[in-house]
């Protein structure tokens, strides 16, 4: 069933495509995170802006990714931009919502105490609100990263230059459904996604020591 010869001969390509996959995903999430951070701070401060941002985000999230990639080809051609813009957009959609929700989740009395003790607005944001928003932010990053890894496979439809491991899936299919190659793309991409998920679970745990402490208390 499995063509070991092919696999042996294409190890380099697989490694390359894996790195490409990680690179494209990381780039998308990083840029997306940076933009959503700014957008979320703006939306949290100027509430009126939040509705339109939120509505736009909702529409974008609903549109199937293939459609977004395809649409961009006509505009930005077969370039990295075409691949990255939708990746960044989907990341934005998830993260803006989560960051705002995280900031909203800070209890009112904590904010009042912070003000009463003499924190400036900026100090309050960075020392109190954001740290407390971290759990939701990390949860958002987790979902964003995992979905972006999935979306990178679809970038293979733009051109052979992209796709990460998705390249093998499409290429294999076009070679009369060459299963070995298709699996060489599919399995590692799934492992990549699951691996990222597990990584973030650990990050989540480390980043909220106070939640762990409470869990310990509850058990003791």
């Amino acid at each position, binding site marked *: 069933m499995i063509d070991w010869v092919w696999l042996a001969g294409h190890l380099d390509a697989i490694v390359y495509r894996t790195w490409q996959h990680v690179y494209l995903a990381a780039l998308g999430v990083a840029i997306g995170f940076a933009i959503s951070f700014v957008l979320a701070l703006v939306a949290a401060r100027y509430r009126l802006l939040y509705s339109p941002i939120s509505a736009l985000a909702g529409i974008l999230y609903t*549109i199937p990714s293939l459609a977004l990639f395809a649409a961009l080809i006509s505009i930005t051609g077969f370039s990295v931009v075409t691949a990255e813009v939708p990746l960044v957009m989907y990341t934005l959609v*998830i993260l803006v919502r989560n960051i705002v929700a995280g900031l909203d989740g800070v209890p009112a009395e904590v904010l009042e105490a912070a003000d009463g003790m003499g924190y400036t607005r900026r100090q309050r944001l960075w020392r109190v609100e954001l740290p407390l928003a971290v759990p939701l932010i990390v*949860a958002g990053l987790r979902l964003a990263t995992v979905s972006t890894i*999935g979306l990178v*496979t679809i970038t293979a439809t733009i051109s052979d230059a992209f796709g990460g491991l998705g390249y093998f899936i499409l290429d294999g299919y076009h070679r009369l459904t060459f299963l070995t190659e298709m699996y060489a793309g599919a399995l590692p991409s799934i492992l990549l996604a699951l691996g990222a998920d597990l990584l973030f679970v650990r990050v989540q745990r480390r980043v909220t020591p106070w939640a762990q402490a409470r869990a310990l208390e509850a058990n003791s």
Partner: protein
Amino acid sequence: MNLVTATAAWLTNPAQWAGQFGIPNRLLEHVLIASISLAIALLLALPAGLAIGHTGRGAGVAASVANLGRSLPSLAVIAIAIPVTVLIDPVLGGTVLPTLVAMVVLAVPPILVNAYTGIAEVDRDLVEAGRGMGMREREILAGIELPVALPVVLGGIRSAAVQIVATATLGAIFGGGGLGRFLVDGIAQKDDGQVFGGVLLVAALAIATEVAVGLLQRVARSPGLRRGGRGPAVGIAPPPPVLGL
């Protein structure tokens, strides 16, 4: 602009609206495969989710399953399904069936999770009152928990539906039908009008699905529960904040 006129030309071309490869037919294909997989996913996930929410057992397993499902790259799932579905039917197994399998696999998690969290979040006092009155477990589930949890459950179905429409679009890559065909063919033929026309159609279908189920959610919320609590936003709602369980 070139793009706009090309798209408009494509969309208004009567040839596009007739025949096997025309818009209506593709739309039908898309809706058909989407409905079938939604039905299967509902059959698999809904009873399980409701049962887990009601009894409280198996939530951990369900959460892991849901997590797993959520993480899987859709294209990879379709690819992996192929050798299996080919055994069922050599022709369809290489085109439509793997996509169908993937659609079901990816739709199960949101339905499952929303079903059991929706039921689990129903005020326990209501359940206890029902038990106290002598209602049987099934009656409690159907008569108390489900009506109250319906908006949340439908929210999961809404996510699943949108996910299914998206995955069906991908199916065109593997020789399937549906509106995705316009995207794939358009790219291959470098026909911008077709690509953009396809984009608009796909987007319209996806948004329409979201809005339709959203309306259903709103209607399903009992008038007695309308005040207070989370209300599903009609229209397009961005994904709710992820709690990362």
